[in-house]
């Protein structure tokens, strides 16, 4: 690997990407030292997927369809759930956990003094490459599910899927970031991880099966509906364009809100050496 520098002439979005890529390489180099973790990760993923498949088989041993979703269609949901979970644990969660720690211990100073946008920096500086296994496994499940699924997936649906998935990832990032910003006010935040993992499990099923108030919470409060169900709807021919446009609008609003809250949080932060 070449020298780890971000060239000064890169500006704007390109510079952000270059910066993130630099951290990805640093993270990869760090984690490549611990290769055994790769096998542990594969084992854990196997158990997780095995359990999920067993539950799916159990449900469909009692019924032919769940709220109108066939078993192949629920496999699509499961694939996206595993894939998105992989993205969260590779890129989002490690950074958020580190941010919580840094705020508590006053180490955020190190990030704030660097000549880059602090929110960008705290969002890209930690990655867990072995968790990427889940992204790959999720993609495989998705491909198998699409092959078993009756309908065709046209170019339009595929594009909608990609867009919905990207918007979903952005929304999950914003949601995690907003939770994490809470660390500026509340000291003990470790339970957040457990809380999120618990609620994230709700996304293994289409959010449409939940009663109204819960469905609304899982869409707007914790954007699992947008992140998993909407991409699944695009593949299974259930998506209408207004939903996708709504997702885009909501993602933008959420991103702006995150930015505002981040600024407010920073004003609260007093550092360790103060």
């Amino acid at each position, binding site marked *: 690997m070449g020298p780890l520098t971000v060239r000064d002439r890169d500006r704007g979005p390109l510079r952000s990407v270059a910066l993130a890529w630099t951290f990805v390489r640093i993270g990869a180099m760090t984690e490549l030292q611990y290769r055994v973790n790769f096998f*542990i990760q594969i*084992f*854990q993923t196997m*158990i997780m997927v*095995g*359990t999920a498949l*067993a*539950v799916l088989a*159990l*449900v469909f*041993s*009692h*019924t032919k*369809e*769940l*709220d109108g979703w066939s078993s192949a269609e629920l496999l699509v949901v499961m694939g996206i759930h595993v894939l998105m979970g992989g993205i969260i644990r590779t890129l989002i969660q490690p950074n958020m956990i580190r941010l919580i720690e840094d705020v508590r211990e006053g180490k955020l100073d190190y990030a704030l003094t660097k000549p880059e946008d602090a929110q960008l920096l705290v969002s890209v500086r930690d990655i867990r490459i072995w968790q990427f296994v889940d992204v790959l496994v999720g993609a495989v499940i998705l491909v198998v599910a699409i092959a078993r699924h009756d309908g065709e997936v046209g170019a339009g649906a595929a594009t909608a899927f990609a867009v919905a998935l990207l918007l979903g990832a952005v929304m999950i990032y914003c949601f995690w970031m907003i939770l994490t910003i809470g660390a500026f006010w509340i000291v*003990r935040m470790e*339970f957040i991880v*457990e*809380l999120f993992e*618990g*609620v994230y*499990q*709700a996304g*293994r*099923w289409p959010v449409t*099966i*939940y*009663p109204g108030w*819960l469905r609304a919470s899982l869409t707007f409060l914790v954007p699992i509906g947008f992140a998993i169900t909407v991409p699944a709807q695009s593949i299974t021919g259930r998506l209408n364009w207004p939903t996708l446009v709504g997702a885009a609008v909501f993602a933008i609003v959420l991103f702006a809100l995150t930015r505002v809250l981040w600024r407010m949080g920073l004003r609260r932060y007093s550092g360790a050496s103060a």
Partner: protein
Amino acid sequence: MVVAVRPRRLPAILDFYLTVMRTAVQEQFQYRAANYAYMIGMLAEPVIYLVVWSTVANAQGGEVGGYTASQLAAYYIVWTLVRNINIVFTPNGWEWRIREGELSGMLLRPVHPIHYDLAYFAGWKVVVVVMWLPLAVVLTAVFRPDLTVSPVEAIVFSVSLLGAYLIRSMFLWVLGMITFWTTRVAALYELYFTAELLLSGRLVPLSLMPPWAQTLADFLPYRWTFGFPIEALVGDLETSELLFGLGMQAAWTLAGAVLVALVWRRGIRRYSAVGN
């Protein structure tokens, strides 16, 4: 020489239990916000199961595996209490206990260390159960369970919570003690807990599982720590079935105690700690 002997009103071990439990209550009550956040986070799991299986029940003409949607609601609400009772010292904690030399301190006490864990977590339960009550009220208002309880069922349920607590404490203790021999235990734990999830009645009432899985569950301790207490209260078990269940709990408690004693005696020989 005169040795002053404190007048003892209680047998020493009982005194030990009460003191540790009191300490646990005081300590955990300080962390009520963290405890609450944790308990609320744990609600996601049963609510998801409940919604999925209610959907199945309603699609199948109102019933699945002998449970209607509102009986499933009762099952999973009682589940939340049993789950909280089921929380004991984690096997993962053993690595810390051994590596940090925490165990050395416990060895200095004139009682077997398992008594400390049993007492401490039992005390913690007092706080947890008090905090659980409002959650149960909310869950009941939201999901409208169908639950009729006879006095016998209520008594058996209460006793079975103790059985569940003891069995799970001891088996997880045995599992944790494997750390005396090796620290590469993550995979083993994962397998153990996955089997428990599927075969205990935690994921679904066991009557929804395929027959072979139910037979398998009969030979393992899991169902006596989860499914049995819930079914004792929610299901329509005969008195003979209730008594049989308590008998099985007693048998597994005994098996757990024997295993703990045996593994502890062998494991502790391998323990050496840096003094601190």
